[in-house]
């Protein structure tokens, strides 16, 4: 057997999978743009994806902000640069940790739920049933989820930003003995609109990716409980990896601007 054959097979398989995913994404975007739309379903998904993710995202943000203040104090006190902590906390949270951690948490919560729901619908022929009832599954199932996730993730991240900064504030004031007025002043002094905007753009990209991966793996789920389980795992893993990849790409784009 040709020793190069397995390498070729793997590469071809990867390229084919990438092609299928891109075609799926293009179809999803097309059906998001073209009517008919289902505003009721979009609202329901906004509630499902956005509102019910608030506790998870809020808790992640508050503890991240708190630990960030504590850790940067450990480092910065060695250079007697404690005054930089407020800036470090707000920049890290808005530019990086807010969107990425919220994205990863939502990928776990929502990506898995979408894949499991669509996977079960595929396995029980509900997706075929939609087609026989003159309803396009892309419009009815995929588009509302993609639209809702892309719209709500920036809102979730904006809330996470505020809660994260608050977490840093609580630790800095309560434990590290900072002056509240000075801390808040230096927080807002260093913050620029672009810091927040770049984080929110990231969030929208992540929302799109999370819903897309959930829908893609659920839609193509194999038969049986195991098929749905595998689809769910893939949705979370590939969603998380794409979030980290696109985090770098979007950061790079904003960095060059």
């Amino acid at each position: 057997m040709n020793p190069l054959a397995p390498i070729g097979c793997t590469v071809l398989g990867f390229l084919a999978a990438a092609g299928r995913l891109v075609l799926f994404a293009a179809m999803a975007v097309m059906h998001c743009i073209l009517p008919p739309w289902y505003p009721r379903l979009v609202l329901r998904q906004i509630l499902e994806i956005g509102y019910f993710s608030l506790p998870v995202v809020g808790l992640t943000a508050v503890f991240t902000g708190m630990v960030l203040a504590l850790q940067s104090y450990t480092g910065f006190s060695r250079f007697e640069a404690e005054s930089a902590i407020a800036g470090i906390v707000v920049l890290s949270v808005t530019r990086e940790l807010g969107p990425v951690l919220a994205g990863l948490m939502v990928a776990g919560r929502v990506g898995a739920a979408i894949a499991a729901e669509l996977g079960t619908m595929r396995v029980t022929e509900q997706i075929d049933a939609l087609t026989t009832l003159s309803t396009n599954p892309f419009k009815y199932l995929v588009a509302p989820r993609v639209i809702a996730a892309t719209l709500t993730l920036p809102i979730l991240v904006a809330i996470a930003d505020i809660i994260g900064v608050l977490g840093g504030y609580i630790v800095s004031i309560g434990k590290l003995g900072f002056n509240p007025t000075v801390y808040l002043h230096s927080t807002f002094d260093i913050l620029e609109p672009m810091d927040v905007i770049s984080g929110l753009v990231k969030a929208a990209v992540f929302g799109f990716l999370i819903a897309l991966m959930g829908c893609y793996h659920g839609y193509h789920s194999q038969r049986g409980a195991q098929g749905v389980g595998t689809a769910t795992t893939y949705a979370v893993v590939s969603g998380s990896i794409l979030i980290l990849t696109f985090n770098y790409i979007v950061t790079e784009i904003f960095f060059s601007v």
Partner: protein
Amino acid sequence: MSQDTPKISVTGLRKSFGSKTILDGIDFEVAQGESLVIIGGSGSGKSVTIKCVLGLIRPDEGTILIDGKDAVGLRGRERDALMKKFGMLFQGGALFDSLPVWENVAFGLIQGHGVSRSQAYAQAIENLAMVGLKEDVADLLPAELSGGMMKRVALARAIATKPEIIFFDEPTTGLDPIMGDVINDLIVHVREEMGVSTVSITHDMASVRKIADKVAMLYGRKLVWMGPVEEIDNSGNPYVDQFIHGRAEGPIQMDVRRP
């Protein structure tokens, strides 16, 4: 369109998944108001056949004419228009479990035909009555229904849009014999009432004798026999004989290792 044009006409239908050939040249016709039942063992390609006709699976080769018009590879509006002629009863019911019973039944009316919700509700209740269900099930969720009720709701959903052709995928599988007979009676009743053509797949012989005008047997990727239901007991075809009598011995060999 003349009265003689068959509702469905399939010629040379071929379909493979990867290297595995499922269907290798299937031909059949279904006339207006006729009931064709396709029998065959599990995994013989019955489901694939009707999913090809429905357009859920794209065949590799062959033509499918619906009312004399080519149906393979239709897209967009033409596909939508064609889909409105079809109704389908799925094996497991395939009810949308996030929607109450009445919205399931009215789904095609609301989404496909643009009927208002209040009007669709009234029509859903009428359709539920047609399959012998009362209004009090209308607000239940599919998870709260028994197997027989689920099949009846699915039947109500399949007929709600007044289709011209209805497909039944193993309508009696998983039901007790009495409920199975109730479903068979309902299918016959619906067909007489609405004058539709039907294509069913099943391996339940009681169901075949009750609902079929014409029977086709699928084995080894081809149709090995087709004829009126009255001739099924004297078909002279060894495959059909073995199947209708449910014998393990015969020309049909199952992939079972013998001890």
